[in-house]
């Protein structure tokens, strides 16, 4: 299971940042359907990762993606309700939260690879 988790972390780090950029473009373009799809996608990825991490760690996930998942859900329900008001604010919160999750994942990847866990800009 731990091997799968490492693979999933790689997969998340390789694909989720691009989703976030697409999400920013969709928010700027006011494309509600696309925002909903991307938020759904990001939520799925974060929730899956969080769940696997918590089952590997015996119930305590180091990913701590609850807040990120919640923000994605808020985006989805806002789009379903047809309201894009405040989506810029929601997006910047989501971006901040995503960055926190990304850093936690990156530092785990570094410590696994035997690299120092600090130094955020080496990516």
């Amino acid at each position: 299971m731990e091997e799968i988790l490492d693979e999933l972390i790689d997969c998340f780090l390789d694909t989720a940042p691009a989703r976030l950029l697409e999400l920013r473009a969709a928010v700027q373009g006011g494309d509600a359907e696309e925002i909903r799809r991307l938020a759904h996608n990001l939520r799925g990825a974060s929730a899956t990762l969080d769940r696997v991490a918590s089952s590997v760690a015996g119930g305590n996930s180091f990913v701590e993606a609850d807040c990120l998942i919640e923000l994605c859900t808020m985006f989805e329900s806002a789009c379903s309700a047809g309201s894009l008001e405040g989506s810029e604010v929601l997006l910047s919160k989501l971006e901040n939260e995503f960055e926190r999750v990304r850093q936690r994942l990156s530092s785990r990847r570094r410590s696994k690879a035997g690299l120092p866990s600090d130094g955020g800009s080496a990516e």
Partner: protein
Amino acid sequence: MKVLVADDEPVSRRLLEATLASKGYEVVTAGDGLEAWRVLQDTNAPSLAILDWMMPGMDGVEVCRRVRNATGLKVIYIILLTVKGREHVVEGLQAGADDYITKPFDPAELEARLQVGARVTDLQNKLAERVTELEAALSHVKQLRGLLPMCSYCKKIRNDENYWDQVENYITKHSDAEFSHGICPECYEKFLKPQLRSRQTTPKKKSGQ
């Protein structure tokens, strides 16, 4: 057993793929609904498919509908992956899904449901095989049935061309039965014995002359 995993979200797709591969399944993946639909139309298509509900291009429910409306496809057991509520589950099942799993999924539950799917497709395939066998056998059987007009005296049967056939000729033509001729004890007494007797007596007459 081959299984299709169709999900546009890469982390869940990878987890499904790894989980199923570790259980010995041969996994084929698709990143969207259109790709899934292409895979399922192939003659070598997997007989189990796990389709995510929300996918760009074509969603999982639409893939289900197409599979069920298409003719000539293999027997495919479809499980829908959904985070949606109960009313969506009904829509999915009505579109032709066999089962559903909610996301995030429990690996043990997923495997158990796949085993159900494997059992069902296996039964359906066996049944289809037997039907084909029976159809092939039936096409070889000539049918002998209905009302046959028969002469009360000589027992000939009138055929479709209004010609009177010997019973054995008629049956041979209309069925796979064949005849070997013999003599029953009654006829032996009635016909053959007198003939044999007359043969034995004839030379005596000749010698007496």
